[in-house]
Each structure stands twice: as C-alpha cells, then as structure tokens.
C-alpha cells in the first residue's frame, strides 16, 4: 500500500530516495533493490523489517556511512555528494551504546559536541538541552560504565541530539531496557517530533512504532514491501474482534459464529477476523451472546501492527 499523500502532498521532504540499490562485495543478492522512499519533514517515520531485511544498509546510506551504488538520495534537499552538509543536519542514535564507558556522561557529551565543532556558547546550550531532554542531569559526572541500561540508552540518545539535527535516525533505541526507561525515551521522541524534528525510527517493538510513528515502511529482502501512514494501515486492514470470554467456547458455539469470519481460540481467548465491518459494536456483541458466550473483555476497531507486520513478512524465522 503506497501512501498517495507522500507522492503529491504539500509537505517538503526530509528524505527522498529513488531507485536506490546496494550490493555488498561477495554478496549473492543486493541488500537494497531499487528502493523508493519519501519521508516528510516533521514526521516520525517507522522503518520496519526482519533481521537482514536491509534496514541497517538503508540507514548507513542515509547517514553517509555507505556510498549509494545506484539511485538518487536527497537528504534535507541535498544530494549525497554534499555529505558534510548532510552530516551537519542529521544524527544517528545507533543500536549499539556508541560512547566511551570510561568517560563520564559530561565528558562524552563534551567530546561529541567538540566533534560537531560547536562553539562554546552553542555547546553549553546544546549540552544542557540534550541533558534535560534525556534526564541525565543527576548522573552527568559519573562514569558511563556505572550507568544502568536505561541511563546508557538515554546518554546514547543525548549524544544524538547535540548538533540539533533536522533529521534524527533512531536504530532500535529501546533495546534491553525496563518499561520506565522505554516510556521515558518514547516520550522524549514525541517531544522532539513536536518540536519539528524528523525522526526515522527502526524497532522490532511494534507497539512502540504504533505509539510514536505517523508513517511507516516495511522493508523485506531489500525491497519496500509496504509504505503507508499508520492510521490508514490500521484502518484499512482486516478488522479483528478480540474477546476474552467467561469460559472456553465449545465447537458448537463457534460454528454459530462462522459467518462472521475466521476465528482463532486460545483457551478463553477468541479472535475473529471479520469478513466485513459490522453495523455496530452492539450488534456484534449481541451475536456473541446469542451463541451462548459471555464476553468479559473486548477489543475492536484497531488492528495490531504486529499482526499486519507478520502477515506481510510471514512468520518464518529469518536467522
């Protein structure tokens, strides 16, 4: 599903990719195969795909780490030939904790701010801003190696904010942290987006993408297999009626509901993939009750991104 808004929308583009291909030396297949992608300024764009799908290669090209072999890439209006200009306007927060554990948080921030060539005043301001956004003030003078997993992720993010990037690439920024830290980081991303920053977000946690992204693309086998706005995607896909019942349904009861659509049962949990939209939610609940089932909890109206993702990329293991 291609988002028509992207092709003709009035919003200026932060990233524009056309016919991008890349093949690693000695690889049998290209890592990227004629990719087309457009990311609007100010959007939070989710980039999804299984391991080895080509996400990292795409991010590496967008951030200037790899040179594109075929196709056209424009970042913030600049071709990749002007990599210095692009690098000034972008930043990446890698999946790895890409800082120096032997330095304090402040020393890490000072080092990276120095590399960005910030003047003293700008450096001070940017460091303060990044520190506040990521909630690091209290631990700034402790060595990074003593930080908890969540603090390390926040320092990783803070370093990415030092140059005040127009486009921020986040490569699985919440791997291996607790719920509190994850919630903090997602909130920080929302506030950055609210401030006008374009965010490109890759994650294997679908609920995170669902929580922060406006647009998304699914990459698989080096191709974009889906690009859409999140709302459209969740709305247009087949509706799922998810119920938790008072008791486990019997075969005879389920057969009475067969006309609604295909169903899955796991104990007291019943999931019906509806053939068509019901007239109303009440009528749907009435059908369930008429089959002798009593719903205790229901969920309807939105698809789960994870279900959509798995239906597109299939369930086979990739590595």
């Amino acid at each position: 599903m291609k988002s028509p808004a992207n092709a003709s929308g009035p919003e200026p583009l932060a990233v524009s990719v056309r016919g991008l291909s890349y093949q690693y030396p000695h690889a049998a297949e290209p890592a990227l195969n004629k990719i087309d992608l457009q990311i609007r300024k100010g959007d939070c764009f989710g980039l999804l795909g299984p391991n080895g799908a080509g996400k990292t290669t795409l991010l590496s090209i967008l951030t200037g780490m790899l040179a594109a072999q075929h196709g056209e890439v424009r970042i913030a209006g600049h071709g990749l030939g002007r990599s210095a200009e692009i690098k000034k306007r972008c930043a990446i927060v890698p999946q790895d904790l890409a800082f120096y554990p032997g330095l304090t948080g402040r020393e890490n921030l000072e080092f990276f701010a120095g590399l960005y060539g910030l003047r003293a005043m700008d450096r001070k301001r940017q460091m303060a801003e990044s520190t506040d956004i990521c909630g690091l003030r209290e631990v700034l003078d402790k060595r990074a190696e003593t930080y908890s997993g969540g603090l390390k992720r926040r320092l990783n993010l803070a370093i990415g904010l030092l140059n005040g990037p127009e486009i921020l690439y986040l490569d699985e920024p919440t791997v291996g942290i607790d719920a509190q830290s994850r919630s903090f980081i997602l909130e920080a991303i929302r506030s950055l987006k609210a401030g006008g920053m374009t965010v490109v977000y890759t994650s294997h946690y679908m609920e995170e993408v669902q929580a922060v992204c406006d647009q998304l693309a699914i990459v698989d086998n080096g191709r974009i297999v889906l690009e859409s706005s999140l709302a459209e995607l969740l709305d247009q896909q087949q509706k799922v009626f998810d119920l938790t019942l008072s008791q486990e349904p019997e075969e005879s009861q389920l057969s009475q509901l067969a006309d609604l659509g295909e169903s899955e049962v796991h104990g007291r949990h019943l999931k019906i993939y509806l053939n068509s939209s019901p007239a109303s939610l009440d009528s749907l609940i009435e059908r369930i009750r008429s089959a002798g089932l009593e719903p205790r909890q229901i969920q309807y109206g939105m698809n789960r991104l994870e279900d959509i993702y798995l239906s597109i990329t299939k369930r086979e293991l990739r590595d």
Partner: protein
Amino acid sequence: MTRFTAILRKEFLLLFRDLHGLLLMFAMPVVFIVVMSLAMQQNFAALGGAKLEVLVHDKAANQDSAQFTEALAASGAFGFSYPASDETIELLAEQVRTDQASFLVEIDPLSEADEAGNTLAVRLTIAPGVNKQTEVIVVAAVEELLRGLKVQKMLADLEDSGMGGGESVEELAAVELQVDYAYQGNTEAAPTAVQQNVPAWLVFAMFFVVVPLSNTLIRERQFGTLRRLRTIAVAPGLLVLGKLLPYFVIMLMQVVCMLAVGVFLIPLLGGDRLELGASWSALTMIAAAVSIAALGYAVFIAAVARTTEQATMLGGAGNIILAALGGIMVPSFLMPETMQQLGQLSPMSWGLQGFLDVLLRNGGLALVWPKALALTVFGLALTAMSLTVMKRSAQA
C-alpha cells in the same frame, strides 16, 4: 574546543584511566630493566674487569709454582683465593662443584722436568655454572701462562749458558697489547649491564603499546562508536591523528621514564649508572621512530583482530617473537648466523641498534638516521595498510 583538541582530550582521559595499559607500558619495563640489569651485572662485569674467582691449591709450593701464580695474578683476570692449608682438596673440589668458586687450580710438583720440559703438573677444574666462552678463555689463558713460563725458563737456560743476546729474559719475553673498549668513545670503560638492558627492554616495552591501543580501537568498533564517528563531519585523518598522537606522547614519556630508571634508580639499587651518550637529537630521533613503528604495529593488530582478546594474544605473542628475533631477549651475537640474518627483519632489532648507536657507540644523527627511517617507513606503511583494511571491512 576545536575538533582536534576534543579528540586529544578524550584520548588522554581514556589513556590515563586505563590502569592496566599504563602498568604494562611503565611498570613492566621498569621491573624488567631493574631485574635484568642487576641480574646480569656480574656477567657484564666479568667482561669489563671484575675477576673470576679461582681457588689455588699449590701443593708444589716451589719457585716455579710461585712464578706461575704470580703470572696468573698479573693477568688481572682472576681473583685468587688461597685456602687454608688444612682444607682438603675434596673440600675445595666441593666448592667448585657447587659453584661457590668458578675454578680450582691444583699445582703438583714434578720431581724432574717431563719430556716436554714441564716442571709443574697443573690441573684446572671448572665449575658447572661457568659458561663455555669463559671456560675457553680461562683454559687458553692458563695454557698461555704455562707456555710463557716454559719459554722464560728456556731463555734463562740459554742466558746461563752464555748464548743469550745481551737482553734480559724479561725483555725477551715481554709483549705489549693495547686493549681499548669501543664504547662511547671512552677506551677505558666497558659497557655495563644497564647500558645494554635499558635500551633492549625499553624497545620491548614500547611495542607493548599494541595492547592498550588495539583494545581501544577494537572497542570503538565493537561498541559502534566508530560507526557513529563516521556519521559526523570530521576528516578521517583528523580522527586517526587525534587517536595516535596521545599514544605517541605517552611513548616518549615512556622513553624518558625508562632512561631515568637507568640513570637514577639502578645506581640506588647498587647497579651501574646509565650513560646517555652525547647526542640528544639522535636519541630523540630514534625514540620517535620506534614510537611510530610500534604504533603502526598496534594499528595493524587492531585491523586484523576481531576481539580485544585476539588482539592481546596476537600483539603479545608477536612482540615476544619480534623481541626474540631482534636480540632483545638473547643478544644477537649469541645466535647462529642464519638467526642473526633473520633477526634483521625485526623492527625491534632496528630500534635496539638505533638506541645502542647512541648509548653504546656514542653515535649521532648520521649513525642513527637509517634505522630511524626504516622504523618510520615500517610504521607509516603498516598504519596506511591497516586503515585501508579497516575501511574495507566497514563497508563489507
């Protein structure tokens, strides 16, 4: 703060906080230098004037035996110990067998001169700890003394029979050999253990920069820091220079520190003082060149090793092989010719010879520069090659 000063500051902070790396670069060579210099002091002293301990058991106690022991004493190579008369030959032999003395000379009288004209029967017992070279030298010296005594006796007989040429026996037997030490331009002083050991272990320690440097480079690669740095608009050359310069400075500090150990610490512990030679510029040149070579080697190990464990093992083992070949652990002159030629391939050998040029041979820039150039080319070539390998593997 400029980009370059930011890189330098970060690198110095990391370096000074790497306690294990610092211990390896500073404590290890200090221990090596102190232990080896003091341990080998006697070996070098033996060559440089200290006397070999000799027990003399003179059963003849006649004019000939007195003449023989006087001649031994006059050679200056032996320290004599005349045991008490009640000490049995068995006890003396036990002292030699247990290395309490290096040699035992037993002098027995002959009732009359044998067919070869000898009037003394001399037996030399050598302690098990005496090395082959010393043994050969001592045996030759004793034989030469006996031969000299015999010649003197013959000349005296000739003189007594009126067939002499008017010159005294002493004048006829006299020979003069001037011995000079080609050491620091000082013909009267022999090199000491500290003079040999400080440069050797210093070069060895400088190459151990491979451990901290390769580990920090590999960690940057493993943690993704290198990847992040590549997304920032900084010239790669600046990153490399900023990374290597602090290590270069630390290595020069290492040189100063180790030389100071030789000059100040070793004498305090009873060893000889290190003499620094006359050419500071040559010393600086060879120190800088060894640093560049060692840094190139470290970057190369970082490029070929995948993990810090691999780098530590490869770098450490490589260092030991280079040191063994390069005459650090075993002096080159003790090696067979093939090994000596093979040793010429070791950059540690070039570094060691460069330092010895200054510290032993009193050389200046003219003597040192070929070795310094070879080391510099070696270091720069390895660095360039390694960076190419790293760049390629980052894109693979």
